[in-house]
């Protein structure tokens, strides 16, 4: 009895020490994540810089205004639509690459290809945006080809929203698909070799093995990765939409997403109601994001308890 008591006292002491280790990290989160959360209140006020949080409360007016202006549906639609496309295309390309990589016998060649395919991941979106101008602006390699095909002198992709769905999808894939492919590949390697050996004895072709063994074995993992992405479907990659488009007017008129919209209201807008509008859009995004993550995580938990976030 005495021993148990002593042990629990020790455990409590240990837990308190462990808690002190968490303090610096928690402090950072409190200051830079939790305290700014008070600011969601700005979404419900008629903001004046002088009064700050004491600005007059106006209820849901900012949200009403956001939806009435027509901005809301367009921006939210673009955010969700592009993310959905990225998830779908990303899945197909990354899976195909992983399946191909799995068949390569020469491990040195495989390492070489993987190494090169990681390079874009290490570039910032800002740099990626500039690199792409060498293909897309009026001196660009691709613009020259398109320009001479259509007879337009000094053709530049940045002057209209044409082709940008493809360009943005390509840029997004280009930057990260090598990395996603490796994650899938690690899972393919983990599949029990006996399945393949049995299939080979039955005379299964390569394609048959892919569709009857590899892909079915990956389904739980595919579901988990896709659900996690769907949880984040209201959040866009700011860098992709801001730098690859070079924030050019004609492109942004169509491809404005919530994150770029909020940034511009925060940093570039001189409108008197910019703050409250940015707050309203941000809060809307945060709440939908939270609901989606919670729901998708609950589904992930059902599929594979180990993979859920919490």
């Amino acid at each position, binding site marked *: 009895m005495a021993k148990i008591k002593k042990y629990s006292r020790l455990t409590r002491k240990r837990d308190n020490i*462990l808690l002190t280790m968490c303090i610096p990290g928690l402090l950072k989160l409190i200051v830079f994540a939790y305290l700014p959360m008070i600011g969601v209140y700005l979404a419900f006020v008629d903001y004046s810089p002088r009064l700050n949080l004491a600005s007059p409360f106006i209820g849901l007016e900012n949200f009403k205004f956001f939806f009435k202006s027509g901005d809301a549906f367009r921006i939210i639609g673009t955010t969700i639509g592009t993310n959905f496309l990225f998830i779908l295309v990303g899945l197909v390309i990354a899976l195909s690459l992983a399946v191909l990589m799995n068949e390569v016998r020469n491990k040195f060649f495989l390492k070489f290809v993987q190494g090169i395919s990681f390079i874009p991941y290490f570039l910032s979106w800002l*740099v990626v945006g*500039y690199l792409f101008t060498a293909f897309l602006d009026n001196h660009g390699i691709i613009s020259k080809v398109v320009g001479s095909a259509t007879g337009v002198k000094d053709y530049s992709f940045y002057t209209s929203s044409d082709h940008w769905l493809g360009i943005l999808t390509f840029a997004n894939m280009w930057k990260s698909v090598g990395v996603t492919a490796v994650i899938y590949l690690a899972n393919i390697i983990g599949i029990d070799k006996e399945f393949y050996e049995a299939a080979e004895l039955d005379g299964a072709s390569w394609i048959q093995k892919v569709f009857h063994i590899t892909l079915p074995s990956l389904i739980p993992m595919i579901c988990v990765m896709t659900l996690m992405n769907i949880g984040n479907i209201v959040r866009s990659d700011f860098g992709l939409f801001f730098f690859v488009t070079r924030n050019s007017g004609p492109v942004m008129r169509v491809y404005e997403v919530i994150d770029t919209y909020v*940034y511009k209201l*925060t940093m570039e807008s001189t409108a008197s109601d910019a703050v409250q509008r940015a707050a309203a859009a941000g809060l809307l995004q945060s709440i939908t994001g939270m609901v989606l993550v919670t729901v998708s995580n609950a589904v992930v938990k059902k599929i594979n308890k180990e993979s859920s976030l919490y």
Partner: protein
Amino acid sequence: MVESKSKTFTTQLILWVALGIFALISLIPLVLAISITFSSGESVMQNGYQFIPKEWSVEAYTVLFKNFDGIWRAYGVSLFVTFFGLVSSLIVTVLIAYPLSVADFRYRGIVSFVVFFTMMFSGGTISYYIFTVKYLHLKNNIWVLVVTQILVPSNVFLLRTFFSSIPESIYESARLDGASEYKILFRMAAPLNVPGIITIGLFIVLQYWNDYITGMLFIDIQELYPLQLLLYRYSNYIKDLTYGTGSLPADESLLMAMCVIATVPMLIVFMFFQKYFVRGLTSGAVK
């Protein structure tokens, strides 16, 4: 038998070609950027961008290297921020990830939730901005680039996974011998998890070096521009840079040279730590 061998050869050949094209696509934009940096201004104006410059020139680099106050200052800021960011972020992340890996730590659930919740919900850019500028007075303070990025939740959870992969029983005997938790962390848990810590370190370095948004929000005096922010505001900067220098390299070659210079350090880091990078990516997915 011979037939199957040649079939294997054909399959492998197709695979090599397909993946070779993929690797080429991954590399081409960077190759083009590098060759633009070696093109003379007139050549770009006349012929557009080219993979093999018509007229070679190293002018873009000489202009950049001569200009110490601009790009090298930004380089210094980025190095400073990345170095102090790495050190502080690593300490803070290790300190919080270890307790979260102790299975029967009483506050494990609540601390995990406090960390995780920030991944789901945020106060939004505007209130983060107002709070940091008006209440913390961190506008145009170099440390804002360090402290706001000090703890990334996904890094905490990744490192926790690394810590958890070592059986608790190893630490248990040390605990019975009366070792303090700090001693266990720094003498046992951390040394046993060096690969995990290097992986996290790599992610941290990448994140600090490539961070543009913090600078865009909180820095507007040029002396404190990190490299990414200088790149963002390059057009103003290049005007200063080329003012009165006579023959000019095209803005584009200068810009691409700045991109190359900004990217090279990360490529070097990647080359040395590729193994850890792959391990970090896959350890979250494979259990």
